């Protein structure tokens, strides 16, 4: 049993490193992205082996799903542009001249001490980690939830999550400042290959899959209180549903007009900040919830945060695709 587990872990880590190497050094950009998507899948398996199913869920939704879609869409638009401007279509400049070789070797040699330093640093650590598990378990009863990761994210260190929803909002504002502020009407024609017409198979897939995605998102949100899951995972799955609708060319901009989109995107930060301000005044500490209401407050906070995260991620996907292109 142990031997098999060792074999599994060893193969997993070797595969992970091999995929990373190939993704970073393959000949063309498309295979780099395909390998990166596979890398995300293996990464989720690694989190499972490290007994971190919460992270595995987030990685499965984002690393293996959303970022792949993001990268593929960006590559398509890049190719469309480069087709107009230069002849270079994604095939990368091979390091064939002396200069590039030199840079490669120089970088490798200079990074060797970094590698050895880091390895030495890790190996010289004491064999036993001193973590915060004991403190978390001692206070879990007062947190309103029984999943320790959710307790950390939404109660003990809720300011992390507060700042994080602002990071998402900032990224969205930055992207919007370079493009249009809505799910663009013409999005399905940008970067899309002209060979694809509307397809009934794709429509059926979207019909069936989007409701399932929404149900799974609601389930993850609910289950996050006592088992792996929570606002980020639910938000990412919901965002995937939006991305699927956008990819299939459904008129999502009619449901989520620019105004509604903006309102939903700021709903999470606003609710978070007002909750923080209230707790600061009433409880005397930032984002400290009274134990008897903590469960309800956390669920409310998570629901709004998940909606905001979903809308923001979907808008990040379609973002910057302004009319001027």
């Amino acid at each position, binding site marked *: 049993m142990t031997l098999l587990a060792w074999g599994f*872990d060893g193969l997993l880590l070797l595969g992970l490193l091999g995929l990373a190497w190939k993704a970073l050094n393959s000949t063309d950009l498309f295979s780099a992205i395909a390998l990166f998507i596979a890398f995300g899948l293996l990464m989720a398996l690694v989190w499972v082996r490290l007994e971190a199913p*919460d992270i595995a869920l*987030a990685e499965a939704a984002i690393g293996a799903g959303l970022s792949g879609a993001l990268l593929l869409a960006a590559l398509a638009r890049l190719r469309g542009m*480069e087709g107009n401007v230069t002849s270079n279509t994604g095939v990368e400049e091979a390091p064939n001249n002396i200069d590039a070789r030199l840079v490669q070797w120089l970088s490798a040699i200079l990074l060797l001490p970094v590698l050895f330093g*880091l390895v030495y640093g890790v190996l010289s650590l004491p064999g036993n980690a001193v973590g915060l598990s004991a403190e*978390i378990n001692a206070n879990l009863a007062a947190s309103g939830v029984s999943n320790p990761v959710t307790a950390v994210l939404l109660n003990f260190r809720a300011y992390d999550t507060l700042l994080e929803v602002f990071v998402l909002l900032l990224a969205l504002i930055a*992207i919007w400042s370079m493009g249009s502020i809505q799910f663009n009407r013409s999005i399905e024609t940008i970067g899309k290959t002209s060979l694809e017409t509307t397809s009934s198979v794709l429509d059926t897939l979207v019909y069936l899959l989007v409701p399932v995605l929404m149900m799974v998102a609601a389930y993850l949100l609910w289950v996050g209180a006592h088992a792996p899951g929570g606002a980020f995972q639910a938000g990412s799955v919901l965002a995937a549903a939006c991305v699927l609708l956008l990819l299939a060319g459904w008129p999502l901009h009619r449901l989520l007009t620019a105004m509604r989109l903006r309102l939903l995107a700021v709903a999470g930060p606003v609710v978070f900040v007002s909750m923080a301000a209230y707790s600061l005044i009433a409880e005397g500490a930032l984002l400290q919830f009274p134990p008897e209401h903590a469960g309800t407050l956390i669920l409310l906070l998570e629901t709004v945060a998940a909606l905001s995260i979903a809308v*923001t991620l979907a808008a*990040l996907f379609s973002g910057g695709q302004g009319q001027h292109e």
Partner: protein
Amino acid sequence: MSSFSFALAGIGLFVLGLHALIVHAHLLRKILAINIMGSGVSLVLVALARRGGDALPDAVPHAMVITGIVVAVSATALALVLMLKLAAETGSATLPDDSPE
């Protein structure tokens, strides 16, 4: 397998990513490199937190890494849009080479 091997793999990912970040000129490749470096850092963080322990895994690094994954994807989205802007302006998705000729 002990947590240390996972941590070492994390270091490997970080160094591979850093190398690619320096060596490759194309910005999309640099964005992939930064993402892989980030995965490596998360791996080190979580693996080291559970070393030598048969006890429950520590939830704090788990929560941090989940936050990190979401931040990484939003940063990636922003970086991709910036790259597309640059490509639209200059016609190439590489940083301008301003070394003295």
